[in-house]
């Protein structure tokens, strides 16, 4: 007897990066099935394959004994699969009713919009999941939680047999999450099969009948309800053989404190205190939205509302001014390379010199000779692979773009460098090169704050690790006490500092 949903050898690559590799998985009818894994493990991708958003490169998928190959979300919908997305996809200026009826607006006389009918349909859809709200309010006036309910109503409204939930609680506060769980329970009671993608263990344990774990795009195993324990899941999530790369900077004696942050507070984080020594790489782990990037931006002067004290090399750093931070010797390699890191249409040379234009100014003139000299020096040192120094940055691969952003800050020079997700979307070779470079820079005495959602990266490179959770520092781990499990525990709020 075949299972309700069968994935057979599903493989999916995105431009050379393998997101799913030979995944074979069965899901039973009426189950609530959890998909777990670290960032980039492929759990969302698998959900999106089922919902027709991604087409697998190879492999087969069948639902209720029928093989399916979806070309679009519409195909999936016709086969009874709906999806509730992590990023909410609505037209914010249109009303709830207009959003819910999108694509199939009721008409009068084939021409005029039938608003009364539209409201009736919207209210019926919301009623199905026990929600009442004014269907004529514009979408943008709704809280995130209510927006999500509307999205679920839209998903349930197409009468699906299967609903894929992709990290539905990532933007929800606790009481709203509880309501969502009750709703999922009631859907389950109606015989709907739910695929629940998340990395939050408590809610998965509560909701799911089974949990399947993915790691590096591969299927690891499935746990039955009675075998679900934190330890078992973490074991399966980590499992990989972590290469024990020992960074050279660690063997040097600790030096003077370069950065001292005390009581830093703003909208998205509270009372953050830590210090980083010269020649040290300090890792920051935590879930997306835990406040790590926000702390980094505040130190770099991008948060005018930040309060607290930041000292660099013993001197207080004024908050809220990028230029003051840069003058003091702070650099930031931002998390969003394409939006914040580089000017894609400009050549490598101009991107590398961009943070040091003030030093290339000679009576208002741009010292092009020196610019070229400095740019080619760092271009060479970082081994940027590009047609030439004059190639526009958008002709480079992600890893080489990131090297250009790093080169920009190295060319300026400084005492303290923040690197936020330095290897996101970067291929393996460039990743190793960036790791080696960070190690080398620390060896030269630079203080480095490393923010990364990739645990092995943080664990391997850092001399100490701070774990952030909900805008606060949940704990500090030394190299001796740090392990994936210890970090995950702090991230999940399961333990105080080890």
């Amino acid at each position, binding site marked *: 007897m075949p299972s309700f949903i069968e994935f057979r050898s599903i493989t999916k690559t995105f431009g050379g990066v393998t997101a799913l590799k030979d995944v074979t998985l069965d899901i039973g009818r009426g189950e609530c099935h959890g998909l777990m894994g670290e960032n980039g493990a492929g759990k969302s991708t698998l959900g999106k394959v089922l919902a027709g958003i991604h087409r697998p490169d190879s492999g087969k998928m069948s639902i209720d004994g029928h093989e399916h190959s979806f070309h679009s979300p519409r195909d999936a919908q016709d086969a009874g699969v709906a999806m509730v997305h992590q990023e909410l996809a609505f037209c914010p200026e249109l009303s709830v009713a207009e959003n819910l009826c999108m694509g199939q607006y009721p008409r009068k006389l084939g021409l005029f919009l039938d608003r009364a009918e539209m409201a009736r349909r919207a209210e019926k859809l919301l009623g199905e999941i026990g929600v009442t709200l004014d269907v004529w309010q514009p979408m943008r006036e709704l809280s995130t939680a209510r927006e999500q309910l509307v999205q679920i109503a839209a998903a349930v409204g197409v009468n699906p047999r299967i609903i894929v939930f992709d990290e539905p609680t990532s933007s929800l506060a606790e009481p709203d999450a509880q309501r969502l769980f009750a709703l999922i329970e009631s859907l389950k009671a109606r015989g709907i099969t739910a695929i629940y993608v998340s990395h939050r263990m408590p809610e998965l344990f509560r909701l799911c009948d089974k949990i399947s774990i993915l790691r590096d795009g591969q299927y690891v195993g499935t746990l039955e309800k009675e075998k679900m324990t934190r330890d078992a899941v973490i074991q399966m999530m980590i499992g990989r053989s972590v290469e024990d790369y020992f960074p050279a900077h660690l063997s040097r004696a600790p030096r003077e404190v370069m950065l001292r942050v005390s009581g830093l507070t703003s909208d998205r984080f509270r009372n953050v205190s830590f210090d980083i020594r010269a020649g040290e790489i300090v890792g920051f782990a935590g879930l997306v939205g835990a406040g790590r990037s926000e702390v980094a931006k505040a130190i770099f002067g*991008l948060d005018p509302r930040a309060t607290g004290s930041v000292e660099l090399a013993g001197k207080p750093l004024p908050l809220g001014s990028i230029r003051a931070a840069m003058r003091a010797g702070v650099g930031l390699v931002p998390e969003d390379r394409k939006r914040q*890191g580089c*000017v894609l*249409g400009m050549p490598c040379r101009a991107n590398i010199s*961009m943070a040091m234009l*003030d030093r290339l100014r000679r009576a*208002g003139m741009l010292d092009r000779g020196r610019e070229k000299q400095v740019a080619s020096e760092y271009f060479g040192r970082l081994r940027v692979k590009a*047609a030439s120094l004059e190639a526009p940055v958008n002709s480079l691969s992600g890893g080489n773009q990131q090297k250009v952003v790093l080169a*920009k800050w190295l060319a300026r020079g400084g005492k303290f460098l923040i690197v936020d997700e330095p290897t996101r979307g970067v291929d393996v070779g460039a990743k190793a090169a960036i790791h080696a470079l960070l190690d080398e820079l620390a060896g030269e005495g630079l203080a480095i704050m490393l923010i990364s959602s990739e645990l092995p990266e943080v664990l391997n490179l850092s001399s100490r690790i701070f774990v952030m959770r909900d805008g606060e520092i949940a704990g500090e781990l030394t190299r001796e006490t740090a392990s994936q499990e210890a970090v995950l525990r702090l991230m999940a709020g399961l333990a105080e500092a080890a």
Partner: protein
Amino acid sequence: MSVVQELGLALVVILLGTVLSVYGWHDALPGRANTFLNFDNLIDGIATPMSYYAIMAIGVTLVIITGGIDISVGSIMALSALGTAAALQNMPVNAPASQVLPVAILVPVAIGLACGLVNGGLIVSLSLHPFIVTLGTMSIFRGLANVLPEQKTLPSAGRFLPPAFTTHFMRVEMFGLQPMPLLIMLVCVVIGWFYLRMMVTGRETYAIGGNEEAARFSGLRVGWIKLRTYALAGVAAGVAGMVSVGRFGTASTSTGTGYELTVIAAAVVGGASLIGGRGTAMGALLGTLVIALIENGIIILRLAQEYRLIIIGLAIIIAVSLDRLSAYMRGRSRRSH
């Protein structure tokens, strides 16, 4: 990259020039000069009328490079031309150049600067879209030009602008020609080239147009750079107003009406990208020259003036399409390597 573009435009200019020259040679009466290729036509027929457009196009190109737009330049030109006329008509007619010229230059530049600062200040401080702000100020500046002068045309009846500025400066004769507007235009191109190409200011301008967020994350003062750019576009419009009032000896409330569209067209034909990050001073000049040659060609070829707008419109669309096509081809050849 921009050099390729400029060469392409120069090619278009040479092509248009050659066609018109051949026609002008064929068309000339026996023993008379080529109707197109003669100094009178080149200076009076092309260079002088295009000078206001080109000067403003350089300023607007700066704005477009930052990713903005300025549609108030025609109104600023009117305001500064009227301001200059109002200031000069009160001076004795026989005042010496040493007194007249400083007023004739500083007044329009100051008016242009003030208007540009208003534009930039509103755009930066209120984070408003430049199109909306300059749409508003286009109307306000034009309104001021209507309200402030006591008459629709200055100088007022019975008064005159000092010849030290008009006849002996803006219309000064050299070898039987009046090249002053041409010279001022060329000086503006050189200044624009210097500003964009040689100075740090240029790099900053391209950077915020290419990616404002990344520029800010690199420590560039985005607000100041924008303010400065709109101020310079205002100054350029002020200079255009000065050239206009000096050449005609009068300024009217309708001076420069509708010029903003031709100016933007010239900048875009010259390779400026409305998305930002692209454009050059030389391109602005060449773009204006292409439009000026077409306008002149319509006269030389004795085409009906009624078709002028259609031909210009088509030329703009064709020029920009060709530019996109060539960028696409270059992109393809780069990827295939």
